[in-house]
């Protein structure tokens, strides 16, 4: 790998009572990467994600984004670094219109005029123009996911963290999302958490596989797909 390290975790651990969800993970992300985190349910990838985004305060270890020690900080402090975050369950403002949702993301960083322009651009880019005045609460699940992606894009982040962006989407929406992610990656470094292997094949080059709270393997998509351990983990061949 070349370039600058933009995010790393050092011995990151998250315990819930007696359960170790993330176990001393050392993870490194280089500039301009599009990294996919995969793993079966309960592998700890979503917990790991929440530690990166400040939604959970790690039990041990640290998260460093550029020079900022983000472990145990508030979500807004992480976001303020210029990090765009999309959570697994769509977190949107149900009582507000699509336009207002996106505007709130743009206006956080920009003055009123620029925010307006950015909002219009984003709505056009994500083909949300027709529903811009609709309340987000009445939209279909896939559309809500897109609104949230729109909020991420409108903030013009340099680092984007997405947790299962295609959950609940139709096949066509998944394809569009894959294109969008590649497009975002032109200007931003990305981490995408997914368990849909089909989708990962569409976007990934470098993949990190989580299993039982640790990194099982980290390699190119092709190498990971050939790896026997990954197959065992996913298909449950090996009895624990």
């Amino acid at each position: 790998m070349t370039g600058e390290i933009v995010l790393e975790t050092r011995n990151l651990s998250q315990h819930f009572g007696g359960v170790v969800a993330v176990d001393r993970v050392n993870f490194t992300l280089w500039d301009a990467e599009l990294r996919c985190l995969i793993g079966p349910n309960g592998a700890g990838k979503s917990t790991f994600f929440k530690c990166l985004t400040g939604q959970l305060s790690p039990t041990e270890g640290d998260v460093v984004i550029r020079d900022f020690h983000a472990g145990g900080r508030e979500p807004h402090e992480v976001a303020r670094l210029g990090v765009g975050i999309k959570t697994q369950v769509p977190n949107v403002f149900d009582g507000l219109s699509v336009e207002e949702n996106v505007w709130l993301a743009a206006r956080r960083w920009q003055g009123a005029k620029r925010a307006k322009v950015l909002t219009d651009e984003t709505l056009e880019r994500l083909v949300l123009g027709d529903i811009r005045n609709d309340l987000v609460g009445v939209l279909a699940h896939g559309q809500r996911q897109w609104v949230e992606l729109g909020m991420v894009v409108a903030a013009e982040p340099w680092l984007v963290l997405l947790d299962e962006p295609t959950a609940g989407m139709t096949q066509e929406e998944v394809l569009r999302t894959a294109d969008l992610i590649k497009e975002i990656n032109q200007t931003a470094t990305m981490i995408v958490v997914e368990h849909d292997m089909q989708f990962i094949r569409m976007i990934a080059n470098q993949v990190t596989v989580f299993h039982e709270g640790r990194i099982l393997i980290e390699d190119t998509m092709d190498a990971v797909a050939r790896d026997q351990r990954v197959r065992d983990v996913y298909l449950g061949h090996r009895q624990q």
Partner: protein
Amino acid sequence: MIRSRETRWSLFAAAVGVVFLFAAPQVFELFTIINLTTVLALAILALSLALVWGYGGILCFGQTMFFGLGAYAYTIAAINIGETTAPIFIAIFVAAAFAAILGYFIFYGRVSDVYLAVITLTVTLIFYSLLRSTSGPEYKIGNALLGGFNGVTSPPLNIPGDPSNVLYPEDMFYVAMAALILAYLFCVWLTQTHFGRVMVAIRENELRAELLGYDIRLYKLALFAIGGGIAGMAGVLFANGIGRVTPDIFNLYNTALTIIWVIVGGRGTLIGPVLGAIALFYLTSGLGTQASINNNLVLGIILIVFVLLVPRGILPGVIGIWDRAQSRSKLLRSEKRMRRRRAPRRPEQEAANDG
């Protein structure tokens, strides 16, 4: 679209207020006008809670604490200073500052909704018992004797810079009405700003607001302090309307009243709770003259009925019905147009289309 309609109605409401400001003294008797100062003070208190709870989603059960603090701070400052212009600002500052301090503990501790409600209620009740126990001569602040449950007599407002030129009770109506209109317009403006929209966003989804980089603790704290300041200003007017402040301001009944105004008027609107406060004041003072019906009983039943049956309150309910009626009439109109277009067709063709 929705927003511009809101603005239009808000300006309309403010205009009605201005008309009332000039017309009321011509129409009503002196007694009613003097009484109105108190009612308007309560209406501003309702407005402050409509902002904090209805817009910001901050479940404050102790808005009367800032109201009472404002009333006491004004009275004590006015007695000590000997004029009343500076005390108005002192009162607003004291109420806002106390809200900010309490808000720091609540919001930065990230206590939940229910805890926040209970803490604010409890602090209010502690003020009540604290001030009730100040009847001895040793409880004085400067020249102002706190007077326990009898309270303190509040000096009336004077013309700024002229302490001897005191406002008559009927003049107070103009001040109170102007204060209500200005406070209302301020709140409307606030909800339209970036700050106001972020507050709505936080009410809708705290986590998303945080993930966009908004420090929700700071936003809530700011709104809580602003609401506290407005309530403090209402307290100044109340002290003028009644002519006295007593610990009863902080009692449980008054706290319940503020909640009922907002529930009845409707969460999410600013004017609803204001109208709720005015309507309930006249309802309860009407009932108060009939000894057989107890105010607590009536208010309790109103609260339960609204929570169970009209949880959105009257005004949002009316707006909802209006919107439905509008869209129905629009639908009817377009159906008529359709029918007219279809008219030349033969009946059997239409039947075939329907099938």
